[in-house]
């Protein structure tokens, strides 16, 4: 089959690779219909997460049709149209039973790598390096889906492939951030980052009853998407002081909930931006945490900060004093998507959650190198490149 592989720092190519096979009884093989780039792929592409092997198949946000079923699968049948969560979870361990699926004890066959880094190992993820299990990704004609009864969800008839695709990760990650940050009716929520995840975090906050929702970014086309498709207000950090703006718009309180949807390659203005860039390039720090810092400083006293962006290691200039003295709740997670996808698909079926606008550039799998370049450079207003492995 054809698949998109990582071939070096900021290099991908489309190669012919072996087809996937059923390796465990609870696997299915999926014929991929839609698979999309995610901002977190850029950390892999750029070599910031140095656990990629040349030839690894990329991609973790996808949907498709079941074409083969392992003997231990209960609920999936050949022909099912499903969307699959990006994290691989067994459904049987204590974490899965608490609906903390990305923390699954049995989803990462390479726990030794991340245990050393973080003290414990999270679950595995499709196409996300050998540190996260070494699973082949979804940018391919076919993909193996382990624990398919737990991680795949039937797409309702009224939901198109284009809409369902983003339930896989962008919507479920955004929804999780808004929910686990404790968004309540009447709250004010600020989201840093107007990519797919940030937009969907804002939309989820609105569906959870938030009264005011602000999204912070600098790219005009993304801010326009937020206004038009999400219905939230926007703040352009390249032209205005975000903290002052938020104070002014919230009666001096600051947002009740602050959601960071940017990650380890955050852009920022001024001295802080230069400082973080230089330290990261010199490998003195792995991550550029400017949006997290600002979220903590902007949050109201006793409020909640949720880190959705991907980080890998220690950071500095972390405003711990602000977090402690303001009594903040600080939380983060990879996506516990299995917990939210049924509800998300219902909202999608009712037309309350639309995602088609995120797919600004839809192209054949063969054009993946161009797609990733456009996505990385945000060329031509690219928010997400979506690949069609079967045309």
């Amino acid at each position, binding site marked *: *089959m054809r*698949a998109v*592989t990582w*071939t070096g720092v900021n290099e991908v*190519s489309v*190669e012919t*690779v*072996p*087809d*996937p*096979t059923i*390796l*465990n*009884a*609870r696997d299915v093989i999926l014929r991929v219909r839609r698979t999309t780039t995610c901002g977190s792929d850029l950390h892999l592409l750029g070599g910031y997460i*140095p*656990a*990629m*092997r*040349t*030839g*690894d*198949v990329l991609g973790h946000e996808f949907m498709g049709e079941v074409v083969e079923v392992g003997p*231990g699968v209960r609920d999936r049948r050949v022909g099912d149209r499903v969307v699959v969560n990006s994290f*691989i979870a*067994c459904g*049987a*361990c*204590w974490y899965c*039973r608490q609906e903390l699926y990305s923390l699954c*004890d*049995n*989803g990462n*066959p*390479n*726990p*030794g*790598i991340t*245990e*050393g*880094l973080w*003290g*414990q*190992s999270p679950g*595995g993820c499709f196409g996300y390096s*050998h540190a996260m*299990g*070494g*699973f*082949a990704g979804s940018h*391919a004609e076919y993909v*193996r889906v*382990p*624990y398919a009864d737990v991680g795949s969800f039937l797409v309702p008839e009224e939901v198109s492939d284009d809409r369902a695709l983003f339930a896989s990760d962008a919507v479920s990650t955004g929804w999780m951030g808004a929910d686990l940050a404790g968004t309540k009716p009447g709250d004010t929520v600020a989201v840093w980052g107007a990519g797919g995840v940030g937009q969907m975090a804002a939309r989820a906050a609105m569906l959870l009853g938030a009264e005011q929702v602000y999204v912070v970014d600098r790219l005009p086309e993304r801010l326009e998407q937020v206004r038009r498709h999400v219905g939230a207000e926007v703040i352009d950090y390249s032209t205005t002081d975000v903290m002052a703006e938020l104070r002014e718009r919230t009666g001096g309180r600051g947002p009740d909930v602050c959601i960071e949807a940017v990650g380890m390659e955050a852009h920022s203005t001024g001295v802080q931006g230069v400082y973080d860039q230089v330290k990261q390039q010199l490998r003195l720090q792995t991550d550029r945490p400017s949006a997290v810092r600002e979220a903590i400083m902007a949050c109201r006293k006793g409020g909640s900060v949720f880190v959705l962006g991907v980080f890998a*290691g*220690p950071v500095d200039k972390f405003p711990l004093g602000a977090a402690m003295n303001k009594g903040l709740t600080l939380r983060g997670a990879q996506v516990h998507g299995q917990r939210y996808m049924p509800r998300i698909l219902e909202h999608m079926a009712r037309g309350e959650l639309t995602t088609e606008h995120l797919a600004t550039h839809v192209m054949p799998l063969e054009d993946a190198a161009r797609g990733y370049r456009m996505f990385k450079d945000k060329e031509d207003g690219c928010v997400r490149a979506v690949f069609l492995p079967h045309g």
Partner: protein
Amino acid sequence: MDLNQLIGRASGLAGGAGAALLKQLQHVRVPGAGQASATDDPEVAARRWRAVTVLREPADVDGAGLPAPLAALGDRIEVRTTPAPGDRGTELAARYRGTPGEDEIGDLRAALREAKALLEVGEVLRVDPQPHGTRAATPHGAALEGAAKAAPREGVL
């Protein structure tokens, strides 16, 4: 020795180095993170109980004999099971009767993880063989492959 042999040899060395590096990394503490306490004497570290918590009743864990991966280590290990607090299942712990070497500890880590997966899921999740494209023979790639191969036997368990 031609160039291909040289690269092959470098890759072989790098693969071993990757596994060794991963082993070393388990003992490294990032400055300022997790460095506040004393470091175990190697003898004490080797003799510690290594434990996983399994979401099953104690009778399901050792009622009908130990899971195969632990049973395979025979009399070389002692095993204890304890009900975990807060309905978290059963703590399954094991340690060697003597003082083990690094390889033996690796065997035990892998056996505990596999035992837990067998008890909770009924099978151990596999990842190989997987589709992949051309693997260039680079020292980084070989080191990573060595580290990934060693990963089920490494970690803080």
